[in-house]
C-alpha cells in the first residue's frame, strides 16, 4: 500500500532538486533511527483526537485513527516507508537518464517514460525495497502498540499477538502464529528471489 507514495518520494529525491529536499529526506529516514516506541508516541500526539491531524479528521470527517485498524496501517506505513524509499531512490539514481531522455524524444510523455523505462530499469531495487518494507512491517511492534494498542480482533498484528500469547502462557497458540509468520516470510522471500532470477535471465 505504501508503494505508490514510496516510489513518488524516491523519484522526487532522485531526479529533482527542490526546496526543502534535505529536510524531507531526513524526515523520511527518521523512523529508521528513532526507537519505534518514540515514533509511535509522536504519531499518537499528531493523530490523537486532540492532535493537529487527528483532531481535524475527528471533527471534520468523523474519522478516528488511534486504536483502530487505520492506526495499524499508519504505524506500519511510517515505519516501513524509509526502507522502500531508500532502496528505490538508489535504484532510480542508477537508471541512466539518457534512456529517459531518448524515450522522450521518441514521443513518450513523463508518465509513459516513468512506467515503461524508469520503473522497469529500477525494478530490482524497487522490489528489494518492497521486500524489506514488508519484512519491517511484519516485525513492527513498538510503534503499533503505542498508537493501535492491541485490541484482539481489531488492531492485533501477528507480532503483537505472539507477544500477548506468550505473556498469557498460551504457548500453543503462539507457536501456531509463529508458523504463520514463518510461512509468510518464507513465501515473500522466495517470491522475490524468483522474480529477481526471472529478470536476470530475461
Amino acid at each position, binding site marked *: 500500500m505504501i508503494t505508490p507514495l514510496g516510489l513518488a518520494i524516491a523519484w522526487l529525491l532522485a531526479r529533482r532538486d527542490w526546496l526543502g529536499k534535505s529536510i524531507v529526506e531526513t524526515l523520511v529516514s527518521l523512523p529508521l533511527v528513532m526507537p519505534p516506541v518514540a515514533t509511535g508516541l509522536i504519531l499518537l500526539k499528531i493523530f490523537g483526537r486532540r492532535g493537529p491531524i487527528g483532531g481535524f479528521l475527528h471533527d471534520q470527517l468523523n474519522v478516528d485513527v488511534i486504536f483502530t485498524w487505520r492506526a495499524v496501517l499508519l504505524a506500519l506505513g511510517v515505519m516501513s516507508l524509509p526502507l522502500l524509499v531508500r532502496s528505490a531512490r538508489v535504484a532510480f539514481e542508477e537508471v*541512466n537518464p*539518457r*534512456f529517459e*531522455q*531518448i*524515450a*522522450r*524524444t*521518441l*514521443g*513518450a*510523455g513523463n508518465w*509513459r517514460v516513468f512506467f*515503461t*523505462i524508469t520503473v*522497469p*530499469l529500477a525494478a530490482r531495487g524497487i522490489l528489494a525495497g518492497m521486500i524489506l518494507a514488508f519484512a519491517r512491517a511484519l516485525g513492527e511492534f513498538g510503534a503499533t502498540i503505542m498508537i493501535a494498542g492491541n485490541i484482539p480482533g481489531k488492531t492485533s498484528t501477528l507480532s503483537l499477538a505472539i507477544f500477548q500469547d506468550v505473556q498469557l502462557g498460551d504457548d500453543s497458540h503462539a507457536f501456531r502464529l509463529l508458523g504463520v509468520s514463518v510461512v509468510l516470510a518464507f513465501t515473500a522471500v522466495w517470491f522475490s528471489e524468483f522474480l529477481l532470477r526471472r529478470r536476470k535471465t*530475461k
Partner: protein
Amino acid sequence: MSLLLKNISLPLEHFTLKVDVAVRSRITAIFGPSGAGKTSLLDLIAGLRHAQSAFIQLDDRVLTDTAKGLSVPPHERGIGYVPQDLALFPHLSVRQNLLYGCKSNGTSNPLFAFEHVAEVLEIQPLISRGVTELSGGEKQRVALARALLASPRLLLLDEPLASLDAPLKAKIIPYLTRIRDEFRIPMLYVTHDRLEALALADEIVVLVNGRALQTGPVLDVFNRPASADVAKFVGMETLQPGNITEVNEGLATVKIRDVTLTALAPDTTAREVFVCIRGEDVTLEQATAPASSVRNRLTARVVALRTEGALVRVELDAGFPLFALITRPACTELALREGESITALVKAPAIHLVPR
C-alpha cells in the same frame, strides 16, 4: 528544412556555448573536436537541456524561445535523436525498441512504414532478438530505425560512427546515405571526422570551444577556412571533386579537371569522388629530376607562400589548386618564389578518394 538557432547561450564547464546559425541543407555536419559543445547543442535542439537564452525554430514552428518562456517538451518536438551511446532500452526486445516511438505518437499513419524502414536498414533478421545480443553495427542500425519510426521531422545523429572500427564504418555509411535518399529527412550530423563529413554532409558548421566559427557548403569550408582556427582544425588540405576513370589492380585513375592522378582504389563503386591530399604528403622538387617510384608527378606553378611556424604552406597551381606543407629550410634550398615552376610529387597511397 530550415532550422534556426538564434542567440543561443549555454554555460558549460570550460566555456559558454554561443551559437547563432541558420541551417538549411538536407544533411548538415556539426563538425568539431571533442568537447566543443556539439552534444550539448543537440540536447538543446531536442529540448533535453535548457539554455540560458535560446531561440530555436524548426521550419515554421518555434520550439524554444527563452525570451517568451516558451519551450516545447521533447516528446512534442518531433525530433529524432540517436545519441552516441545509442541508448537502446536494455529491458526491451529489438521489436519493442523499434515500436516504442510508433506507439507514442499515436497516429496510425506514420511517416515511414515499418516494413520500409526495416528493409532499408536490413534489420528484419534482428527483430526477435534481445538488445544485448546485437553487434555494434546492428545496434547502430536498430537505433537509427527506432528514431525514424517515431516519424521525426529532423534527425539528430551524435557521432553515429565514432564507436565503430573502420571496416564497420564503411558498412554503416551507405545506410546513412540510404536514409538520406529514401526518407528525405533532414539530419544534423555531429562528427569530428572530416571524411565522414565529406561523405555525407551538404553543409557544415565548424564548432570549436562552443563557437560556430564557420558555416557553409562542406567544400567551401574545407578549402577556404575563414580563419586560422578553422584551418587548423579542418586541416586545410587539397580537396577537389574528381572522377574515377579506371580501376586496375587496386589502383584507380582519377581525373581532376584535365589532370590525371593515380590513387589506391577505394572500397566503393562510386565514380564521383572527392580527392583529398594532405599538405604533408606533397613533395616538391626542381622541375627536372630523374624518375622515381612516386606515381604522380605534376608540373606546377607556385601561386603563394605562407610561413606557418617551422613550415611553409605552398599554394600551387597544378591544373587544380594543390597545397604543400614543407619545412622552411627546404623552401630556402629550393629557392621557391611565387610564379616559378616546380614539380610536385604525390604517392598514390597519399591520395584519398571519398565518394561524393
